């Protein structure tokens, strides 16, 4: 369909914010590795991932602006903290532990793949076209983190220990990915955000298990509890406040700046 029904606008904007905010925040975190990657190829890889994340976020903010008015830069940088819809996992400060950055990328890549796969079947044409384009780009990168998880887990005991530590640290944050945004059930029923054949968490867990099982790493994942309230409803981690302040510093200084 060409036009979005009025009743779906509000819940769709919430869903789109959760995607764009995840990508913007993850892209900001990944950009921290520019110049600091453990090897040159990974320096470039994380910079490229950040570039895609932030560009994709920009395109989604543009789509939100089409629905609500306003402009993409303001939507990205000019909102108050409790209106962001990103989740705890992307907000985490990796404190320059590259194992943490790789494991976070691994968890997020597979989740993002599933989310975009659903959006690429949306009955709203504009969303379907944008998501299909993004999915094709994401698919070029999805093997990257998988390969590092396997490679490091099968490497020296130090490398394996660091990956295991990161998996153990980040697994408890993964339910935050799956918290539904306000009104998501309506979007699913209406075909704007069509469900997968399996529940989202089950589909994600089986993709993750394909890689984890190969390595013998220990990991336990849970879907969010029914009463879980987190980033998708504006309740953010302590790491987020510090990051948001840093990320929006230039914008707050000069909102009309062009560069």
């Amino acid at each position, binding site marked *: 369909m060409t036009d979005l029904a009025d009743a779906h606008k509000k819940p769709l904007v919430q869903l789109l914010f959760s995607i764009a905010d995840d990508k913007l925040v993850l892209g900001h975190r990944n950009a921290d590795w520019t110049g600091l990657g453990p090897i040159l190829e990974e320096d*470039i*890889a994380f910079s490229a991932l950040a*570039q895609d994340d932030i*560009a*994709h976020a920009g395109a989604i903010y543009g789509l939100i602006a089409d629905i609500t008015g306003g402009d993409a830069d303001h939507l990205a940088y000019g909102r108050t903290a409790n209106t962001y819809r990103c989740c705890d996992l992307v907000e985490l400060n990796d404190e320059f532990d590259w194992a943490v950055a790789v494991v976070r990328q691994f968890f997020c890549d597979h989740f993002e793949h599933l989310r975009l796969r659903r959006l690429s079947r949306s009955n709203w044409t504009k969303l379907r076209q944008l998501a299909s*384009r993004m999915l094709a*780009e994401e*698919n070029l990168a999805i093997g990257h983190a998988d390969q590092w998880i396997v490679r490091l887990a099968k490497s020296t005991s130090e490398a394996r220990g660091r990956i295991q530590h990161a998996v153990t640290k980040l697994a408890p944050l993964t339910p935050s990915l799956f918290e539904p945004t306000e009104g998501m059930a309506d979007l699913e029923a209406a075909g704007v955000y069509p469900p997968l054949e399996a529940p989202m968490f089950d589909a994600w867990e089986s993709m993750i298990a394909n890689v984890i099982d190969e390595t013998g790493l220990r990991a336990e994942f849970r879907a969010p509890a029914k009463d879980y309230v987190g980033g998708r409803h504006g309740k953010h981690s302590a790491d987020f406040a510090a990051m948001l302040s840093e990320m929006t510093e230039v914008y707050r200084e000069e909102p009309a700046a062009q560069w």
Partner: protein
Amino acid sequence: MVAAKPTVDSIRAILGTVIDPEMPIDIVNLGLVHDVRVVSGDDGARAEIDLIPTFIGCPALDMIRDDVRKRVTKAPGVVEVAVRFLNDPPWSIERITPAGREALREFGVTTPERGGAPRPTPLTIAGNIAAPVGVGERPACPFCGSAKTRMESAFGPTRCKMIFYCDACKNSFEHLKPI
């Protein structure tokens, strides 16, 4: 004297002079031009140009848009230029013309075989971890023609390229991603 009237063909010819800042070929041969329309008005023609980006995150898009505007605005009879970037149809390496592929190769950038893209989704299926994009590809070296090439990094200097290495002539070169 009759004023020159811009046509779709004359606008396309101008677009053929716009060079992608990150690729040594023009945007027509690169396959970025989707549609060109010329709408006549009372005081002159409006040129509407629909382009498609190689990648959403390509930082060259603004430069390309500005260059298109600047050049087409100078065409006799054109009073307005509208440039849009579309998400659909998606760009793919299939859109690069044979002449464009040859020009890229001469410059040292190889392109996956036609018909090779789009690649199937590289996902972990039935317990097998799929190889990342680029692994197993053996493009002929653009410098010496050898097939003894291999991927060095799936992430290259721009969003659309990977880094490959030729074991025969010991040169590295860029290979476009199979999107």
